[in-house]
């Protein structure tokens, strides 16, 4: 059974395709390969392409790290102050190092890298907050927030990583017990926050209909 959010993922890809001409000259051009990879990954996951010995955690480890790097790069480009960029770059490098260490030496390649995933969540949440702070300082902007694609992207990321934080924090403790309620909770949380993320991404792409932001040109 497919998760509902997959439909929103496809919708995001569709909206992106429609808006492609307006997006291709912006930083958002990187969303095309990203969305395709994510759609293929989710489709493959539903069809068990990546299942090895009853688990696809290894593929999640890779895809979540790629996702972290992708959004990390985006947020890096969105931050304007050199000091913020420098701190964020250090945090990215450190997190990547911890993730590698965790996947290969601590939790292992075949198990979900929850420790490093939590660290990734904290870094992304902090970066979105830094971006929001930057937005607050740049109040002279005539473009309202709901027309700002970067705002929608960061809102989606904030909710996605905030929402999945508690679930992954308890994953090591609960997941391997085979508790059906926990699996259901996973379905609800994972679907809900993915839907929020993709709706925000769709909004972000739609912002290019009338306004072209200069910040990422």
């Amino acid at each position: 059974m497919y998760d509902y959010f997959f439909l929103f993922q496809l919708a995001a890809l569709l909206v992106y395709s429609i808006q492609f001409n307006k997006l291709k000259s912006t930083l958002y051009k990187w969303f095309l390969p990203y969305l395709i990879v994510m759609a293929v990954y989710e489709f493959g996951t539903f069809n068990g392409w990546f299942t090895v010995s009853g688990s696809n955690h290894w593929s999640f480890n890779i895809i979540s790290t790629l996702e972290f790097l992708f959004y990390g790069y985006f947020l890096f480009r969105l931050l304007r102050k050199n000091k913020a960029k420098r701190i964020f770059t250090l945090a990215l490098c450190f997190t990547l190092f911890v993730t590698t260490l965790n996947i290969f030496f601590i939790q292992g390649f075949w198990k979900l890298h929850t420790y490093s995933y939590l660290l990734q969540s904290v870094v992304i949440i902090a970066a979105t907050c830094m971006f929001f702070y930057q937005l607050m300082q740049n109040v002279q902007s005539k473009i309202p927030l709901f027309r700002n694609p970067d705002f929608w992207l960061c809102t989606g990321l904030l909710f996605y990583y905030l929402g999945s934080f508690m679930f992954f924090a308890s994953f090591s403790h609960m997941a391997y017990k085979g508790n059906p309620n926990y699996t259901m909770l996973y379905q609800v949380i994972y679907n809900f926050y993915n839907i929020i993320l993709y709706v925000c991404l769709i909004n972000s792409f739609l912002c290019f209909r009338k306004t072209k932001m200069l910040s990422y040109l």
Partner: protein
Amino acid sequence: MLQEDKDVIIFIIAGTAILLLLGIFIISFLFFYQKKQNSYIKEKNQLKNNFRQELLKTQLEVHEHTLNHVSHEIHDNIGQVLAFIKLNLGSIKDLPQAEKQVRIDESRDLVSHVITDLRDLSKSLSYETLVTKGLAETIRMEINRINRAANFSLEFNITGQVLPLSQQRELVVFRIFQECMQNIIKHSEANQLKITLQYSTELFNLIIEDDGIGFCPDDAIEQGGAGLENMKSRAKLIDATISITSSSGKGCTIKVSLNPSQMQVSFDGLYPSGPD
């Protein structure tokens, strides 16, 4: 299901809900903040526009006042003298040679007088004078003009070293001065008038004192004295204060004060002491 697992699931749900609320709070705060900032910017622009509009109005009033003065001068003075010269020269042909010469000399003197008047008139185009010669000189010229026409004695003093205020502030102070003079001429029945400009780096004062019939400022405002209200609002526009001291039978003193150095910092040529 074990109680422990149940507790953990409840904890996850509660924690997720709290984090969701946190996210909602952050986004709402951002929206609220931007909305507040936008309304602040809008208000600031509105104030700037009002200031510009008021300044333009003041400028137009000064122009109007100048044109009225020019029109009166042409009609009452130059026109009359030229008409007299015309009569003088019209009746000259039948006169004996000696008297002819007297009339011609008289007419020549009158023409040179008219030329001087016209020159003075062109110099008294107040706004341009204000821009080129500054407030003190323009007030001096205005006083000289009034002095010629009015039937009261006028004293003008400047203390301290004359400092240029910004063009807008000088325009507003000059317009207040004109309005005061107009009121004095029309209503005060004064015999003596004293005008003082006090300059220092920290304080500029324009003091206008008369010994006329005086009035009660509060009553004047209550009776619809738009002039006084106008003066006050204009003074406020340039961060100046205006005090009117008067009572029935005891003349009137009007004092306009402002801090030139403070204004130079905050005024920035556009908008006084308001939000930047």
